[in-house]
């Protein structure tokens, strides 16, 4: 028994746990709830409204004269939302399949698992800022997101009601269709990089220019500039697929209110509904971090060094002395901030698109997925292969 205990790599376990707790509970869950808030504020601004701007922190309860209103106002809204969800009546309709009805919302939080594979920073105190640094992390992410369908299918089926069922079916066929184009569209990136380890991919971009912005290091070669064409195509296809995978407008078929009430979570109330809601936004965060990692250099900003105080050679030569002034852990933290800042920007883009476009019809959605994106992604692979073959000589 003692030998068994000794064989457990405690140090790695504790580090992984610390990273997981940091990412999920200190960053991503608050990010999720504030994405919901941002969604409401941005949509309001786009539609010439004000949006929720009043919910401050109730300092009046503590005896102060006024509630604390921060610069924008309404920053207490997510807290109030969460309280509301928890305190609501949890109503289970009759005739549902109890076990699966409870299982589905739990599975809805599955997208959070795929965050384990995503490098959210360079290194901090000498520890790589990625929870599971495996050499097939791209596949890992796809594996986890692929299992995300179960929550929706089960919710639709267990509700024992026709609209949720239709929503569940729509969602699963949509996810299967777009998973293909999502997986295929990313292959040019992997071909150029020649591997599947996300942390190395980001390091490569930090040294050689982001894939869509090859302006320094190895990015200044003719090959990389030629590659911009297939990379741009794969970026567009990937982004569209991420929209479809996360059930965001213009592809929010599973819960199109006008047709299906609320889709697969029609019968859910209280915290169970909130879990679906959060799961959807968590999937959005995973999707945008993937976009950032693949195309926009993850944690890297050209003039900020990594957690060891090293930047790309070009910037190292200019600012090298300045980098040495500040401790490495500061740069490590800066990288983490940069990563989540980029993710937040992509999230705003998601919200922006949602409040711009109307919804597709379901047959149009299937047509786009199977007839256009899939083929474009396939041709794009051949194009990439041709460019790589000609330039490598």
């Amino acid at each position, binding site marked *: 028994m003692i030998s*068994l205990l000794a*064989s*457990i790599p405690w140090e790695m376990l504790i580090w992984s746990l610390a990273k997981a707790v940091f990412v999920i509970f200190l960053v991503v869950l608050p990010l999720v709830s504030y994405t919901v808030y941002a969604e409401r504020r941005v949509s309001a601004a786009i539609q010439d409204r004000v949006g929720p701007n009043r919910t401050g922190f109730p300092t009046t309860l503590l005896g102060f004269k006024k509630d604390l209103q921060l610069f924008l106002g309404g920053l207490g809204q997510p807290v109030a939302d969460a309280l509301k969800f928890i305190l609501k009546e949890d109503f289970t309709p009759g005739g549902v399949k109890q076990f*699966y009805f409870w299982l589905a919302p739990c599975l809805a939080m599955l997208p959070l698992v795929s965050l384990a594979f995503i490098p959210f920073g360079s290194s901090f105190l000498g520890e790589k800022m990625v929870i599971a640094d*495996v*050499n*097939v992390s791209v*596949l*890992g992410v*796809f*594996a*986890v997101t*692929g*299992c995300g*369908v*179960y929550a929706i*299918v089960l919710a639709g*089926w267990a509700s024992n009601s026709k609209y949720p*069922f239709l929503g*569940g*079916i729509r969602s*699963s*066929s949509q996810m*299967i269709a777009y*998973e293909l184009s999502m997986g295929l569209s990313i292959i040019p990136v992997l071909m150029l990089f020649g*591997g*599947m380890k996300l942390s190395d991919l980001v390091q490569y971009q930090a040294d050689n220019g982001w894939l869509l912005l090859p302006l320094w290091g190895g990015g200044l070669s003719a090959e990389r500039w030629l590659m911009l064409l297939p990379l741009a195509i794969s970026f567009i296809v990937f982004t569209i697929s991420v929209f479809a995978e996360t059930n965001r407008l213009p592809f929010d078929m599973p819960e199109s209110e006008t047709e299906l009430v609320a889709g697969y979570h029609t019968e859910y109330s209280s915290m169970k509904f909130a879990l679906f809601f959060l799961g959807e936004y968590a999937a959005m965060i995973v999707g945008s971090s993937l976009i950032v990692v693949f195309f926009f250099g993850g944690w890297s900003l050209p003039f900020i060094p990594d957690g060891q105080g090293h930047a790309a050679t070009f910037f190292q030569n200019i600012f090298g002395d300045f980098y040495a002034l500040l401790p490495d852990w500061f740069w490590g933290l800066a990288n983490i901030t940069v990563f989540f800042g980029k993710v937040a920007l992509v999230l705003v883009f998601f919200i922006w698109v949602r409040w711009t476009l109307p919804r597709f019809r379901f047959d149009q959605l299937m047509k786009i997925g199977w007839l256009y994106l899939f083929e474009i992604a396939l041709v794009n692979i051949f194009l990439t292969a041709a460019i790589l073959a000609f330039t490598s000589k």
Partner: protein
Amino acid sequence: MNPLLFWFFAAMMLAFGVSVVLNRNPVASALSLVVSFLCLAALYVGLDAYFIGAIQVIVYAGAVMVLFLFIIMLLDLGAEQRRKFNKVALVGGSAVALGFAAQLVGVLGKFPMGNKPFPELKLPPGESLNDLQHVGETLFSVHTLPFQVIGVLILVATIGVIVISKRELK
């Protein structure tokens, strides 16, 4: 791989495998099969075969089983009826199973490799573990022909499906 993890996932896998057979509700069976696949993937990952593990999850848990569930739900299969056991078949079936198990134990006990601990795998110095690369190189150099043949086979199957589904009923 830590033996604790191995026993945990192996036990889970077998338990859910049994539940696939014993469950009378088809959806419960399908979901048990998914959990069983996930545990199998965990075992692969424990052996540092990340690629196989990830592919296992993507292909089986992420795609095949979703389609399975889909069909089960669309056909709305109810729970299976309990059947009366045919005593002769029961006795005969268990006798065959027991005989096979006994044979297996006997052969494995005498098999010289079965009594030796597996030699620890060591990477050549200076080479990092990259199972993805190894799988790719093996597939496209040593096993190119079988790989291509399988590709053609799948293509034929796909075309066959389209032909069958497009054929007009008379």
